[in-house]
């Protein structure tokens, strides 16, 4: 009996082996030294959230998340085109080199404040590239030409014509490829552009690593925490905050004023006036300092201030439309227009939401329903509405009977007009 059982097991094993050999090896990766934009923003987001979420503090990373959401950072290793087949210059247009697909488009933003890695010109270094599994292919590393301006869209012609480093099937260990390369003779701010073209598939990966060539040591030291803010000049819609300055080994470049987890103001000095507040409302603010390397300080202590009884957010208009309805549900789009001369910060829109319906999904906001009222709050990228500006969001609702459209809305406690 032992022999038949053994053969049964061998048969199963052979079957499994046949299946295994036809399955693809998993290939995903990105440059981790010098770190790519998605990798360093992911790390920044992890640090900013204290773990479990992504809350980047680097301004470029914040802007990238506002544009593209958090998913490209959760998937920081997936900046790829599945059918590239070496046609990079043909299928990736100028301006899209760092994020050639819609998902990663936010990482094309031409700005100077991406996280950088300090490197030394002409040094022999170990390049590191994350990989989830071994896969054959060739990596080419390019550097931008002298005079490159990071605040302009990256074009193919911005790259030196030949890669300063090229390697096929580099060694793999501990989940990453690593190999020695000699860095080019450059100085100052540049981008190292890495292309990984797999040889067993048309799939290719793209990454931009922002680097500063020089002889110095990387700045990893954050500024000290700002002192406790002091509130003054309190009105019904604004408050002035002053705080003792931070210090930093290379200098503080920015202060960010937070209300909760949202940045409500930024400034290069240790004073700012926060506007767009609601009257007769308690607000708590805190301040974080940052340096040019993207290091963020610990938070200052918070200060709580109650606004006066003056006028609040001013005129607002809410346009509510239902572009799609079906048996048992509907889609609603909502547009808030801020007609006042002041920005509305951290907006919250409230309207009646009677029983017989529930919000099943939403976008460009977060919506909660309680006690017959729905409350929508802006997402990270549209939490504030500029003076004269608008914010739009939408949601899907499931219904169990006839529902009527809302007849009134309040924005941060102030009634809005309905056209």
């Amino acid at each position: 009996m032992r022999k038949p059982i053994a053969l049964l097991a061998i048969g199963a094993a052979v079957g499994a082996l046949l299946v295994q050999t036809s399955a693809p090896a998993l290939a995903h990766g990105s440059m981790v030294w010098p770190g790519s934009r998605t990798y360093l923003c992911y790390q920044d987001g992890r640090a900013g959230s204290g773990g479990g979420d992504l809350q980047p503090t680097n301004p470029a990373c914040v802007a990238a998340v506002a544009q593209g959401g958090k998913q490209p950072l959760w998937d920081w290793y997936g900046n790829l085109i599945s059918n590239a087949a070496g046609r990079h210059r043909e299928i990736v247009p100028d301006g899209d080199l760092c994020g050639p697909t819609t998902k990663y488009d936010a990482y094309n933003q031409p700005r100077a404040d991406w996280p950088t890695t300090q490197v030394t010109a002409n040094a022999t270094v170990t390049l590191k590239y994350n990989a989830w599994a071994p896969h054959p292919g060739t990596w080419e590393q390019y550097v931008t030409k002298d005079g490159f301006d990071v605040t302009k869209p990256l074009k193919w012609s911005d790259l030196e014509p030949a890669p300063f480093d090229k390697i096929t099937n580099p060694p793999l260990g501990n989940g990453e490829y690593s190999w020695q390369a000699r860095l080019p003779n450059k100085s100052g701010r540049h981008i190292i552009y890495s292309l990984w073209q797999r040889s067993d598939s048309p799939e290719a990966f793209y990454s931009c690593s922002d680097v500063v060539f020089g002889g110095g040591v990387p700045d990893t030291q954050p500024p000290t925490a700002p002192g406790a803010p002091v509130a003054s000049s309190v009105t019904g819609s604004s408050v002035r905050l002053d705080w003792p300055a931070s210090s930093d080994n290379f200098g503080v470049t920015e202060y960010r004023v937070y209300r909760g987890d949202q940045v409500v103001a930024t400034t290069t000095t240790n004073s700012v006036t926060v506007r767009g507040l609601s009257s007769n409302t308690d607000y708590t603010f805190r301040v974080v300092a940052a340096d040019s390397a993207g290091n963020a300080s610990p938070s200052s202590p918070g200060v709580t201030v109650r606004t006066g009884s003056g006028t609040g957010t001013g005129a607002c208009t809410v346009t509510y439309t239902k572009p799609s309805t079906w048996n048992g549900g509907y889609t609603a789009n909502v547009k808030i227009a801020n007609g006042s001369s002041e920005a509305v910060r951290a907006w919250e829109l409230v309207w009646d939401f009677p029983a017989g319906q529930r919000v099943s999904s939403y976008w460009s906001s977060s919506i909660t329903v309680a006690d017959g009222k729905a409350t929508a709050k802006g997402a990270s990228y549209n939490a504030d509405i500029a003076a004269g500006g608008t914010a739009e969001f939408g949601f899907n609702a499931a219904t169990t009977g006839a529902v009527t459209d809302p007849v009134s809305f309040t924005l941060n406690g102030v009634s809005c007009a309905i056209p």
Partner: protein
Amino acid sequence: MRVLLALFVAGSVVCAILVARAEPAPDPAGGVDGIAAWLQQVTGECTGVRKGEDFAAFVGPVRAKVYGPYIAEWGTCSKPPYEQLGLLVLRPGLEEGWRAALARGEVKGDPDLVFGDGFAITGSTGMEHLGLKRLECTLTACALIPIKHH
């Protein structure tokens, strides 16, 4: 000998049946929980299911605008290498919505999802094991393409 050969063949068939379970089979009526349960069944992974969070915060406003109207329910789970893998229960029309967005210049290329029957997943790596498909789109048409085994 015939018996032994039959046992050998039977072993291979058993394995093939086990592998065949990895077809896209979740019932969209089961919602996000149904997709998660199916992933857990066929891969042993997909834990920490979360629902009801802001979809636009996950994918950004551009893709939220395009995908949002066609999503009946969405959530995430952790399935290595994805710390946050999106699980989407779909309503019909996403193809047309994507092509319209292509025509408006709001998006480029193909949707960054893999598709089963009535649902989609945001990941890419390893999804070919699950029998899921990519959607390749032009301005005039979209086609579901099996993900190639390399």
